Every structure is written in structure tokens, then in C-alpha cells.
């Protein structure tokens, strides 16, 4: 077995090197955000000065975090609610217009974000949702629907029909069947849909750039981009990297923590698809 170990060494070196290249920018930005640098919030020694700059910029880091949280919450809740009900309808019911509605939902994928944001900018204003975090959250939820509805449909379709039928014989209604039988059976799918809706909403830049103009309503990515552009004189690289870390940490944490769920969600999708 010793020879096998020896022949494998080059592959360890190669993949290890690749892993370091993948980790390096992230590790570097974490270090850069606390490193001393002239003309930043952190001039002498290591410390959190750049994060203090963020706390004091415009409406303040707390407000930006709140804005991002509201957008993400609206997106995740709407995406889950609509795709659970829709996925249930597509998986377990027959009704006129079913195929057209399903194809119409998938067709959202074909239309560029920019193509829809121009009219949505006008439309949301007439609906009273102009410059609104809820309006933006709903738009982002619409963009999650193709993936979310497809995912929930194939997840529900994979649940054996006998399970529901036995519950129905016991007198459960269709909504109770969904809540008590189907939803507990598709937890990896639910987590996958919720996680991806969160990541998309938390990280979206183009949507808020066009739909949000009130500086107090900016979510984090927009605020950090504005912070960088507005600095007079010396560019504040330190505060920018601190902003990158604030944006990235919740995502990295959720992504690693939930990995076994969404990997299962994807793999089960692969077998069915």
C-alpha cells in the first residue's frame, strides 16, 4: 500500500495548491480588514477601526444590516410559501392550465434581470412599492420561483402516494396532508430552497442599485459600494474589506452549516431529474 501512497503525493500537492488559491482571497480580506493602513479607520496596529468606520458611515452599519435582513426575510418567506403551495399543486393535483403555469414559472429563468428591472422600476412605483424593501424582496422572490417551484415539485413527487392516502382515509384535509405528511418528508428540499433564496437576496446588488434610491434603505452591498465611491481623497480600502467580511460571514456560516442538507437536496434532485 506504500507505493499507492507515493503515487498519490503529486495529486495531494496539486489539489492542496488549488485549495490554497481558493482560500487565499477570503483569508486575505479578513486579515486586511483588521490590518493597519494609512488613511483608514485602522492606522496603528491591528484592530477593529475599519468596522467602526462602517458603524458611522451614513445611516450606519446597523441600519444597513437591518435593511438587508428585511429584504432577505421577505424573499425567503415569500419564496418558501409560494413554492411550497405551488409545488404541492404541481406535484399532486390535476387542474386546467397546470402545464402552462409551470412552464411560465420556469420561463422566468430565460429573461435577463436587467430586462425586467427597467419596467419593474416603473411598475413598482405605480403599485406604491417604489423605493421599498418589501417591493424589492417580492421581485427577488419572483426570481427564485423557477428553481424553488421545480425543487418543491420534484421533492413532493418523490413522496410515496400511500403516505398521503392513509392520512386522507383518517379524515385529514389536503392542507393537513401537506403540513403533517409532505413537508416533514422534504426538509432537505425546503432548506435548499430557503438557503438559496437567502443567499440571492442578501447578496443582490443590481436590484437595489435600480429600485432603491433612499440612502437609509440601502442594503449592505449597495451601501459598501457607495462608501467606496463617496470617499473623498484617499480611497478607504480598509473599510471596504471590512464591509466584505460583514457581508460574507453570515453566508459562509450558513453555507457550511447547512451543507449536508443541500447536498442531499441536489443529489436527490439529480436522481429524479
Amino acid at each position: 500500500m506504500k507505493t499507492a501512497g507515493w503515487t498519490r503525493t503529486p495529486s495531494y500537492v496539486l489539489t492542496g495548491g488549488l485549495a490554497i488559491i481558493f482560500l487565499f482571497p477570503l483569508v486575505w480580506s479578513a486579515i486586511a480588514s483588521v490590518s493597519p493602513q494609512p488613511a483608514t479607520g485602522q492606522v496603528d496596529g491591528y484592530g477593529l477601526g475599519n468596522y467602526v468606520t462602517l458603524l458611522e458611515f451614513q445611516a450606519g452599519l446597523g441600519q444597513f444590516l437591518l435593511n438587508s435582513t428585511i429584504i432577505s426575510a421577505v424573499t425567503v418567506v415569500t419564496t418558501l410559501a409560494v413554492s411550497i403551495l405551488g409545488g404541492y399543486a404541481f406535484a399532486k393535483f390535476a387542474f386546467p392550465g397546470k402545464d402552462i403555469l409551470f412552464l411560465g414559472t420556469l420561463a422566468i429563468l430565460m429573461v435577463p434581470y436587467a430586462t425586467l428591472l427597467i419596467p419593474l422600476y416603473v411598475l413598482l412605483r405605480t403599485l406604491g412599492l417604489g423605493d421599498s424593501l418589501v417591493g424589492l424582496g417580492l421581485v427577488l422572490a419572483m426570481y427564485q420561483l423557477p428553481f424553488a417551484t421545480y425543487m418543491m415539485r420534484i421533492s413532493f413527487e418523490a413522496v410515496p402516494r400511500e403516505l398521503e392516502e392513509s392520512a386522507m382515509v383518517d379524515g385529514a384535509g389536503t392542507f393537513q396532508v401537506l403540513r403533517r405528511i409532505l413537508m416533514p418528508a422534504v426538509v432537505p428540499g425546503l432548506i435548499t430552497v430557503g438557503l438559496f433564496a437567502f443567499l440571492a437576496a442578501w447578496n443582490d446588488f443590481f436590484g437595489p442599485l435600480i429600485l432603491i434610491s433612499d440612502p437609509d434603505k440601502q442594503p449592505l452591498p449597495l451601501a459598501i459600494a457607495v462608501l467606496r465611491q463617496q470617499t473623498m481623497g484617499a480611497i478607504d480600502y480598509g473599510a471596504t474589506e471590512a464591509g466584505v467580511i460583514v457581508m460574507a460571514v453570515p453566508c459562509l456560516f450558513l453555507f457550511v452549516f447547512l451543507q449536508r442538507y443541500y447536498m442531499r437536496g441536489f443529489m436527490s434532485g439529480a436522481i429524479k431529474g
Partner: protein
Amino acid sequence: MNAISDRLAPGRLLGPEGWRRRRTLIGMGYALPTAIMVAVFFIVPLLLVVQMSASDWTLLSGDRGLNVPENYADLGSGRLFWPAVEFTIRYTLIVTVLLIALGLLMALVVQESGRWSGMLRTVFLLPLAVGLAAASLLFWGFYSNSIGPLNPMLQGAGLIESPISFLGTPTNALMSTVFLIVWKFAGFYMLILLVGLQSIPRDIYESAALDGAGRWSTFRHITLPLLRPALALSLILAVTGSLLAFDQFFLLTKGGPDNTTVTIVQLIYREAFQLQDLGKAAAISIVLLVALLALNALWFRSLRKPATE
């Protein structure tokens, strides 16, 4: 939702016919939120953008009547239009080739189960969790001469004499952005191709090994052909995503130097919110949409055709 929940077991009070009609209505009820979302936030804006593209529609004054041939006819005369189209296509070709090649390599590396493969898988997926805007801002500092680590490292190793300006020349700006995108998205293509690899039945490999097929010939004649669907999906996603590139160029290169890295979507943004001409921005959006639809239609036709082997 209680309004549509029925408390009746199949056929208890209603006959089979009434039961079926009732289930149809309940199904439509569950599909209603999807229908509303698709109608309000997708169909209506889609119709509106078509109307806008045919109108003299400014950011401040709104709709000022029909402007039919002009919005479209003037497209090509914009100074940046053709350079942006050319640049976007060039960028798409480079990024697509690199993403799929590296994604496939990574998928092959991590497909075996084991602790090392599992760790590599997580590391390769990590950049996927970072948002594109956050990643663009990260690399904006990473490539800077002020705090960037690359020039000191390269100079320390004696590889370069004077610092490289990573965003200073058109080629450098393009390649620096390509590196950012490959870093951020290669893990995603690894994931798609990994799912594809794992759907290939084990016994095919076993019988190939019995036939004495080598590693390369197994890869060439078994893995690649059976990976065709996953490769086709990767190709569609990489090309579509790259043709719609915006954040990375808006934040990292800002379209520069000298407007050499302006993409089509950046042009839409400029037209709408800097030149305040929503009608013309809508016209560019429609052209982009039609181009993407045509591309996708082409692909689906070629996918439908049985594999020519």
C-alpha cells in the same frame, strides 16, 4: 389556507365525480399564489418593457408617446454599443471555457468519498456563498496597489521587477475579472458536473476495467459521453450568466480603462439611469432577450437530436 382545506375523506359524501371536481378547485387554489406572482412581477413587466421599448419614455417625464423605429434604429449608432457587444462575447467565450474545464477537473478530483475529498469540496464551494458584489469589492482591494498582496508577493519571489497594474490595461482588467469569476463560480460547475458524474452507473466503469480500458480511454469514451447532459447544462448556464455580466465590471473595473470593459447590461444601466432614456434602455433589453431566446432555442434543438456516436 383553511378556507381551501377540505375536511372530507375521498368519496365520503361526494361521488367520485364531485370529488374530482373538488380536487381540481383545491389544486387551483394552491397554484394561485404562484399565478399571481408570475402575473404581477413577470408577465406584466414583460409586456410593459415591450411597450416601453417602442415609446419615448424618459426617467423623469414618463411615457411621452410612440417612438417606434427610433429606439431600435438608433441602437447601433451609440458609440459604445458594438464595442460592448464584442467585449461581452469575448468575455463569455473565455469565462465559459475556463469555468467548465476547471469545474470538470475539480469534480473529478472530489468525486471519491473520503475526508480529503470532502474538505476540498467544501473549500471549492466556499466562494459560491460570497455574493458577487462582495467578491467584486474584495478583489478590488486584492488587485489594488495600495493594499493588494499580489505585487509584494511576486516582487518578493523575484518574479517581477516593477508592480503590475492589475486593472490598468484593457487586457489586465479583463483577465483580472476572469480570475474573479472563475474563483467565485468554478465550485458551482463542479457541483453540476459532480451530480452528473455520480449518475453514471458504477458497473459501466467496472466492465470497462475488465475490458482493460486505461484511465484516459475510460474518461474519453465513457465519462465524457455520459456526462453530456450535465456538460450541456453547464454550457447554457455559463454562457447565459456571462452574457448578462454586470456587477463584476460595474464594481471592479468600472467599465475601464477607457470604456474597454463595458458589457451589454452596463449599457442598459447607463442608458436608463445616467442618460435617463428608459425607452432606449428597454429596446436594448428586448434585443438582449431575443438574442438569449434564440440561443436557447438553438441549444434545445441540438440537445433533442440523438447523440451522434
